[in-house]
């Protein structure tokens, strides 16, 4: 297995063959471009009143795309960036050429199939690839296109730069892992703080991540720069977090709903939100329109694209900010006091409900930011958050449930571990390693790295 510097965060190498490269297509995946078709806010509100409102306000009112079959894809590698001007040819199963196009500046191609559903072969002109780039597993693909489906076709391109340059694989993987871990940490800090202050194991936290990425994608798709879209997405994340608390969890706490019941409720919420997002967004993976055509910058022992570098910097700055906030600010101290002992905090004059609301808003905002950055280095997908959730749990558990700093440290370790583990295990099993790590931690040190024994009854 090669380790292209441009690696996808959550679902394995995008450049891998379809199917094998993903951690798992969910059932009923669709790939039509329905995200841009008209959606009326009303029915969403009917479906899930409060949460849907956020989406509804943001839905672009584009025109419906014409139905029809298509194959599409992108030719890109980490070091070269998108590859333009490569001829892509589609032939029918019988060998008749359907059409042939050249990839555009973003490395993309899309070929309509007037003959409709059926078996096709997609071939790229290997000779037109830049120097050193080869199609690792062949230059043609046999695909079956279903009715009304725009089928993504991926070619595993290997960039020759990996060999022969000064890069050291372990260092490269470490940097990748660090970035991944920081993104997990962004999302996991909120999960951990919510657990600490309310005792809720929030299985719907992954959806906050997805909402961040999806909102940023929709806004970005209308032509707004991604940075501005990200700011809005983070605000929406905070708002969804606040809605979570105000519309659901605070009333449930008032009713005296037990923790186990609350956990099951959060699973129901996760399921409903996830598929609501899929209905709104569709089953496809999409990239943002900005920052796609970047080449990896060579730093000697490793290479990294600017967007990944900025992801690391942003995540670091935000996380340090969160740590400072927890350590220094009034509200941060109040959060830790509530997490330590809610009754005592309440009796010493802290407005516990307000603190919890702030925790939810901060958690939502951080998760949304994590989602935006994840969508940047990877792509935006309807279940990206849910798949990240297990890794968040791993990070939070590793660091010590309920401790904010523990979540930070644990998440980074999980991210690095997952990427570095590909040194010894196949790439498509790296999440298995991460999840096994979680189980091993629970055997060896159930209170986590920073959790103290004192907290174990």
């Amino acid at each position, binding site marked *: 297995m090669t380790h292209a510097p441009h690696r996808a965060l959550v679902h394995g190498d995008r450049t891998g063959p379809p199917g*094998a490269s993903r951690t798992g297509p969910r059932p009923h995946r669709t790939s039509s471009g329905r995200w841009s078709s008209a959606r009326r806010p*009303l029915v969403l509100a009917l479906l899930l009143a409060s949460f849907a409102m956020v989406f509804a306000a943001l839905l672009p009112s584009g025109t419906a795309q014409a139905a029809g079959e298509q194959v599409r894809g992108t030719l890109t590698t980490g070091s070269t960036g998108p590859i333009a001007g490569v001829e892509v040819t589609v032939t029918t199963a019988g060998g008749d050429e359907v059409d042939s196009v050249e990839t555009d500046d973003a490395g993309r191609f899309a070929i309509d199939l007037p003959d409709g559903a059926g078996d096709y072969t997609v071939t790229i002109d290997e000779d037109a690839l830049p120097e050193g780039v080869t199609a690792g597993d062949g230059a043609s693909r046999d695909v079956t296109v279903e009715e009304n489906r725009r089928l993504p076709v991926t070619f595993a391109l290997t960039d020759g730069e990996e060999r022969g340059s000064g890069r050291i694989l372990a260092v490269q993987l470490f940097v990748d892992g660090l970035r991944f871990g920081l993104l997990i940490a962004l999302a996991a800090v909120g999960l951990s703080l919510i657990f600490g202050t309310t005792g809720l194991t929030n299985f719907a936290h992954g959806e906050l991540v997805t909402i961040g990425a999806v909102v940023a994608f929709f806004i970005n798709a209308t032509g707004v720069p991604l940075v501005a879209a990200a700011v809005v997405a983070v605000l929406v994340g905070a708002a969804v977090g606040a809605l979570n608390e105000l519309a659901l969890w605070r009333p449930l706490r008032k009713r005296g709903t037990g923790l186990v019941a609350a956990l099951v409720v959060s*699973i*129901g919420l996760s399921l409903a939100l996830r598929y609501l997002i899929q209905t709104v967004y569709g089953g496809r993976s999409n990239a943002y329109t900005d920052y796609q055509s970047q080449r990896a910058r060579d730093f000697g022992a490793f290479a990294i694209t600017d967007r990944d570098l900025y992801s690391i910097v942003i995540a670091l700055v935000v996380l340090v900010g969160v740590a400072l906030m927890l350590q220094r600010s009034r509200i941060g101290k109040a959060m830790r006091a509530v997490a330590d002992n809610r009754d005592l905090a309440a009796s010493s004059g802290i407005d516990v409900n307000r603190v919890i609301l702030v925790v939810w808003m901060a958690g939502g905002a951080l998760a949304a930011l994590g989602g935006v950055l994840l969508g940047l280095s990877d792509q935006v997908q309807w279940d990206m958050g849910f798949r990240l959730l*297990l890794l968040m749990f791993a990070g939070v558990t590793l660091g010590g*449930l309920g401790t904010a700093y523990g979540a930070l440290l644990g998440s980074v370790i999980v991210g690095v571990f997952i990427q570095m583990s590909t040194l010894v295990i196949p790439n498509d*099993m790296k999440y298995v390693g991460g999840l096994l790590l979680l189980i091993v931690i629970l055997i060896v040190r*159930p209170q986590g790295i920073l959790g103290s024994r004192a907290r174990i009854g």
Partner: protein
Amino acid sequence: MNEFLDALSLGVRSMFAYQAVFFALLAMGLNLHFGYTGLLNFGQIAFAMVGGFGIAISVTQWGLPFFVGVLIGLVAAVVLALLLGLPTLRLRADYLAIVTIAAAEALRLLFRSVSSTPVTGGTQGISAFNTGFLDLSPWSPAGRYDILGTRWSGVELWTVTVGWTLVVLGSLLIFALMRSPWGRVLKAIREDEDAARALGKNVYSYKMQSLVLGGVFGALGGMVYALGTGSVQPDQYQNANTFLAYGALILGGAARVLGPVVGAMLLWFIIAFSDSGLSALIGNGVSFFGLFQLDDVFDATDVAFARFIIIGIGIMLLMIFRPQGIFGDRREVLLDAR
């Protein structure tokens, strides 16, 4: 109107199809875990997967007889339960939840990975392992049989017969166990495990027994499902199925013997009825109170997601307002201090 009747008939048929058996068995296991013992197992689908693959691998890869395969599947489920239980059953409930869901996902990824393709068939999975099972069928596997206006293939009919027999036997077993002092200890652990400890009960051991027994039910469910579809693929065993099984359990009412069975039947009725009903409505261009056309909002593929949205909201609402299930006893739930 005809479409409505068709949807109704499809719904009723689904109540007895092998999918309903699958979820009934999954939910019966969860009932032991969650309903009676208070264990949060969110990886029930993993037990189903090792059950299904247990048969498939034994028969196709190792050339063993079908019933040895069944045995291997059950043993695999027991081993999985022990592996999951050993580190987590001493810890607080949410640790088991996290570990089980993680293990289920990890196992699925492992089974579908390229490296395990020689054994598990990777994403393609394994098929053609059920001849030993079909040989015993009194109905011709290729035959078509009409029962009360619904049509079944011989394979389905045989699978369903065996499946419902398992459900009935399993329910009798749970009924007997829950009337015994053994069941009483499980319920005591659910209520307060420290109290059970203070009364001299080895809580860890009972939790483990419950986890193993419930896991075996899950494995049996996976086997019925594998025989019904005639193949096993790792991606059939998504975590979402565990949540659906929880939906069935909560719908029917946890901690009662027939709760999961009734719940699974209802769940499948709702799914099949709403799927075919919604599709028909969309196809007919029905408008929603004149406000908008239904097919503006949903297209045919969305119907499949709608079921998960409905079930997700259903789980939330049931858990908040009627945690005892549709047929449960309100009195008991008022006392639920968890």
